[in-house]
């Protein structure tokens, strides 16, 4: 059984639908991890859900890096090469943890943006919603980044239209769009599963 741990911080908003999303996909065992938990069992994949962890105080995602659960999970990711997927706020946390290169800045128009966008990788196009205020990806040398997905119509001004990045080993993925908002019949598409599969089978 493929085990997935969803880490819940105070201020996380999207953990409930992330768990729903994973539960509808067969063959996964989903566990919730509270940010104060210790002695965490090793999972095959960790998901950092979207939201405003610790109210985005100080800097988006920064305060989450100090929590005890994250310290253990970081070890699982770095030493045992377990997978980690950060969505939205989770992307910010992974960048703050230095598990991913680069950083995220305020959107170019200085506004929160919530709308469906189309992203692509080398194989396919995916239609998924975005919802973020701080999603403008920046890296001084974008040609060195292992890019996962790019926007067709860049909504937030990110460098080279980057929407999601892998780390160099390929076991950590940060995504600004929300795959957990693209899987039900009334969502913009059901491409969320494809994005999850792309990563799980990588």
């Amino acid at each position: 059984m493929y085990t997935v741990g969803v880490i819940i911080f105070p201020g996380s908003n999207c953990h409930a639908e992330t768990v729903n999303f994973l539960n509808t996909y067969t063959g996964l065992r989903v566990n919730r991890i509270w940010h104060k938990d210790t002695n965490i069992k090793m999972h095959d994949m960790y998901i950092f859900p979207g939201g405003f962890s610790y109210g985005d105080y100080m800097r988006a995602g920064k305060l989450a890096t100090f929590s005890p659960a994250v310290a253990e999970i970081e070890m699982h990711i770095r030493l045992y090469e377990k997978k980690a997927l950060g969505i939205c706020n989770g992307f910010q946390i992974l960048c703050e943890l230095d598990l991913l290169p680069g950083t995220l800045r305020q959107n170019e128009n200085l506004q929160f943006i919530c709308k469906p966008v189309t992203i692509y990788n080398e194989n396919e196009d995916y239609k998924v919603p975005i919802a973020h205020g701080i999603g403008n990806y920046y890296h001084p040398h974008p040609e060195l980044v292992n890019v996962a997905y790019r926007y067709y119509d860049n909504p937030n001004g990110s460098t080279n239209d980057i929407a999601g990045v892998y780390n160099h080993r390929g076991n950590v993925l940060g995504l600004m769009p929300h795959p957990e908002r693209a899987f039900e019949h009334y969502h913009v598409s059901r491409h969320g599963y494809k994005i999850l599969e792309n990563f799980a089978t990588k």
Partner: protein
Amino acid sequence: MLTKDELIEIETRLNRKPNHTEKSVFDAMWSEHCSYKTSKSHLKRLYTNNRYVYSGPGENAGVISIGGTDRVAFKMESHNHPSYIEPFQGAATGVGGILRDIFTMGFRPIALTNNLFFGDPAFSDDSKRVMNGVIKGLTHYGNCVGVPTVSSKIQFNKRYEKNPLVNAMAVGHTRERIIGSVAKDLGRLLYVGAKTGRDGIGGAVMASDSFTDGVDLRPTVQVGDPYLEKLLIEACLELAETGHVIAAQDMGAAGLTSSATEIGIKGGSATFKGKCGIELNLDKVPLRETGMEAWEILLSESQERMLFVLHDWGIEEAKAIFDKWDLDCVEIGHLTEDGNFTVYKDGNVCCNFPLSALEYPELERPWTPRFEKEEVQSEYRFSTENILSQYDSEVQGNTIKGIRDDVAIVRIPRKDARGKDKHIAIYTDSFPYHSFVNPKNGAEFCISSIYDKLVYVGAKPIALTNCLNFGNPENPEIMFEFKETIDGMTRICEKLNFPIVSGNVSFYNETSGQNILPTPVFGAIGLMKY
């Protein structure tokens, strides 16, 4: 401010001169905002009951049953005055306040909507400032607490230039026991959430008066913290499930005073020997600043605070829950059986009078018809896409029709016993121009068109909430508009069997003699048939 007659009334009720703290308490509780003194006698006429209604007006929010044990709570509230003084914080705390009304009762908030009215931004920089600030505030707070904003409507008219209207509605769902706002048993008072500061003192009194030019009212506006609200939602819902809660109140207008007295004023049941009374010890209230006086603590409108009445045996478990969510919680008093409101500070009694003295006698204000019929329609049109995309309308993953659709449809988060999904439709609207020309007809037309809209999308219209925004009620013409609107609502609601289960009245939307258009805003819930 208290009038001379009211002061005499207080003296006769107490048989002595009230001290300064008591006077401030009466001042806040007898303000239009808290006492509904002008509207009470009219609101009694409303049609408020049918077979779907679980609890109507009088609670924090109206509750309807949608089959099985599923219940939906919803309410609309205005935050007009603060939103003009300080648009960002005014609008943000408006959202915070209405959300607290919902989750105080044990409901998980599942949707937000708002109706906004501004002056023409094309002609006035001030209107632009207010509009941008209000939208920033609403989006910031709503997105951060993780409740989807599923509908937002904006209207413009020069009459709203100095009195913008910000009406927000929240919808919640639960399958557990509902928590009332009135104590039915003796218990201990637990203060939870943010520390008390000097922000928002006198907010209720400010909102019950017209604006005059050149007065800085910014200290009367509260400051919001959505992160704390998010923690409060989760912690309060966890506490509600334990069954230890006797009653709960959020500290909104008039802060600790109104939440504590409202718990007690209608409290009591067979278990009480006498009348329900309240004993508060202000020394225990967590303070943000030093040297705050009793009246400041009692009337501070610092946001994100709650008051719980808990059974003795539930205190330990409650403290453990709030500790888990890193929230302050302190026991600040208990309920008594003597029917008195007693407040201690530094070992002295600073307030001691029977709770029943706080009930305000109804007020019948005179009204006269108005014949002025100028052309008032605004020509301002613009694309709302840039504004709508700032709201997170999809968080929680249950939004089927969202902010870009006419009628919002939201899925109830949990499947029912047969494994089926339920869906509710949410629609809000207002026709101020129509109401200006003919208040009675305007209200009728608005409600029936809302009814139609819900039917068009395949929903059964169930119940309404409203927010009645009017000018200065001391003006008989405004009072006429208000009375006629209530008449219209009563008539059409009875005909359609479409009850009003909660609501809010905002008077004194007047600046230097210029009143707003009569703006009754209605929000409705329908149950989808599929």
